[in-house]
């Protein structure tokens, strides 16, 4: 077992690891510089130039814009909103709220009952990647999955200062 190199991390990100390699990483100590290596690999992979501050989800990053903003951006280049707002509100949505729509994904009756629950598929407007799927009752507010405290993370946990930011935001809902 050993701490992963950048090449190993790259294979993990791309889903090309062997099981033995992955098991070795699981068993190794969680090294303090994982985040640094990880950001370097991700930065090398994206086609755009903004600095990645935090990977938010698959395909989604919080990046530092030249104008001082900190926004959510897809690896295809589509830009959503300030990271403190819910990126889903600027996405596309397809709602499966009938039994027929749910049964396109699940054999009947192995999917939810559409009177009780619906599936909400959130897509990137740029590349139509399915970024998130919510399974919630009808009428449930859009879920704001993760709101990181970026300043605290960098200053207190990583011991680094971030560039000054300029915020441009709008209401993000729940």
């Amino acid at each position, binding site marked *: 077992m050993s701490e992963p190199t950048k090449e190993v991390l790259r294979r993990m990100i791309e889903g090309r690891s062997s099981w033995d390699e992955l098991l070795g990483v699981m068993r190794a100590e969680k090294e303090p510089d994982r985040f640094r290596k990880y950001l370097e690999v991700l930065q090398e992979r994206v086609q755009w130039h903004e600095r990645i501050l935090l990977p938010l989800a698959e395909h989604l990053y919080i990046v530092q814009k030249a104008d001082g903003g900190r926004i959510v951006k897809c690896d295809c280049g589509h830009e959503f909103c300030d990271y403190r707002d819910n990126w889903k509100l600027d996405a596309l949505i397809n709602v499966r709220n009938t039994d027929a729509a749910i049964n396109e994904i699940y054999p009947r009756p192995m999917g939810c009952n559409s009177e009780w629950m619906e599936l909400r598929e959130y897509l990137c407007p740029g*590349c139509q990647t399915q970024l998130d799927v919510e399974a*919630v*009752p009808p009428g449930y507010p859009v879920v704001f999955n993760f*709101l990181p405290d970026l300043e605290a993370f960098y200053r207190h*946990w990583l011991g680094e200062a971030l560039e000054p930011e300029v915020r441009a935001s709008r209401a993000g809902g729940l």
Partner: protein
Amino acid sequence: MHMKAKVSIGWDGASLKDMLARSEQLFADTGHYYGLRELTMKERTPLLFERLYLKLRGALVSAREIARNISASPIVKELGELCFTVFTPEGDSVALSTGIIVHVHTMSDVVKYMIKGDFEDNPGFKPGDIFCNNDVLAGNVHNCDIHTIIPFFREGELVSWIAGVTHVPDVGARTPGSSPVGPMSTYDQGLTIPPQKIGENDEVFRSFKDTYKRTSRTPLLLELDEKTRLAGCIMIRDAIGHLIEEEGIAAYKQFMREAIENGRRSFICRVKRMLVPGRYRVPSFCDVPWKDEKGHLPQAARNSLVNSPLEVTVNVDGTLRTTLDGASAWGYHSMNCSPSALQGGMWVMMTQSLADAESINDGCYFALDQHFPLGSWSNPGNPEAGTAHAWHFLWSGLNGLFRFLSHGYYARGFLEEIVAGYGTTTNILYGSGLNMFGEPFSATNMEMTGAGLGARGCWDGLDHAYAMWNPESDIGDIETSWELWEPMLYLGRTVKPNTGGAGKFRGGNGMESVRLVWKSQNAVFQHVGHGMVFVNCGLFGAYPSNTGYRRSVHNTNAFALIKERKPLPSSDRDPEDSEIERLIAGDHVVDDKALTLPEPYEDGDIYVSVIQGGPGLGDPIERSPRLVEKDLNDGQVLPRFVEPVYGVVARQDAKGKWQVDEQATRQRREQIRRDRRTRAIPVRQWLAQERERVVSGRFPEWVVRMYRESIALSTDWGRDFKSFWNIPAEGSVYDRPVARSGKS
């Protein structure tokens, strides 16, 4: 009147109550367990510290492995549903064995209940005393987990508490099984033993020995489980005695305190190494589909949609805060939870992921702040609220914990630790009646532990091998476990395709069993699962795992088929193209009501048990076509879903082997993206369309009631809900009072 002088049994002449109060004050004042700003033993004599810990933990694990063989219950013997713990005299856990680690903190609550309740005065604590508890209000998950607790004395002082817990097969409730579904309150959910003394001089009182005969369908199994727990505790007591002889009492006392503070610091260190400070929202839901259920009184005969809006805050100091603000109200069923149970559920999951399982103890508890709204299913505040099957809401409500952790791990780069969630351990088969030996039986079939684990960050989920509450799960042998207990033969036990949630990495699939009722008398069986809602959620664009369903066949021609040597079904597999429907004639029942009361079954009837898969991770059309090809050839996915869900085009060769057409797959996936673009609309446009329906409450009654309950019990959640949809603060359809029975 001659008054006997009171002899203190605490350290240095103090009472246990004073010791507990001092411990709590020291933590409140300093933020360190017992005020320990320095861990002098760990820092100056680290080998002594490690030696004490390893010897203690070794004794706990050994005791568990030996004592479980006393039990006759497959739940304990094969599945390992037991656990042993050592506590400080104040009741804080120092170390645990493997097993049902949900009980890290529950037995701690019981010890503190006894101390704060002045048990030290009456009945008192002496060497050789035996205490017992299964009461949720004192500290427990549910009443089938029975505790045995003994004190350890040295030189007149109570140095430690030692406790063991086993999960027993039946608690004598209105309906059968270890976690009965059907009781409406504590008054019909069976055996309740509040903390009490049940023995002296290492022997259980003769007056207690008939308790299980009067209160359980499986009294012998409960009696042997009691011997299991007591034997384990005594083995541990002896081991601690040897340890103290080798290392000294002063070292042992110091070690106990430092171990807990070390546990607290270790947990915080792990948080800071692996997560990101911030707010994580990971709601889950559960269903109770009992509208017009004839077997219930009106207050229980209703549909309920249960909201578990779990939110976790990772603080800058590395501590965590969890809240279920917005949780639904408690109900007239057996699935409510106590805060003790929720804390236990939290730890059983943390020890599988973030926390270092080898050093888990109550130190982690001191790094966590938790909030459960009073009046909700998570904190009923009403002793009537039934809790015998607390797991039903626990395992659905806490599914979000793995998602929360995964968001943090993803952000930090620890992809190898990501798990999208888990399948709940359902369907559970419960039953009772007379078995093939003409004897009363109570069935709790534990093959539900073969659920699917959710997809990992860079790998598929674990197929049919995971139970959230016992990661050492074992589905048990057909012939030597279940067919010996239940008057039902297995026709088949197979992988269930399409139970794992679709994704770039799919969730682990579950499994299914097909049973034929045989040599039974007056048998009743029930289904316990989730049929109406998904209880987990996919991660990063994947889908949740399957919902459960009920399939039974009554008045079948199965025996005629056997006599004529004609084929019998071994699986349901694809419920829309079922082998059971094709081969078996009879009265088929197929629906999504996966949570039932006990129903009569006759010999020849068929019962299907579908065990849930785990949720997926990532966009399904990013899944490697080679993995989809392997799934097809392994029977892990139904072919008709491969193209619409994964965008993979594959064909079978002459030998039936599936092969992917890579070019056609690329084209199909491009088409799927175009179709998505055509079908989807901007979220804000959808919200504007949806708002009118939300404001008017045009949803099924149970959906509206869910929102009313959440708003009534949690001001903040209610405010946020209304703010999101721009609903007036007062006077909306959601502000009407919630009735406690029938429709709201």
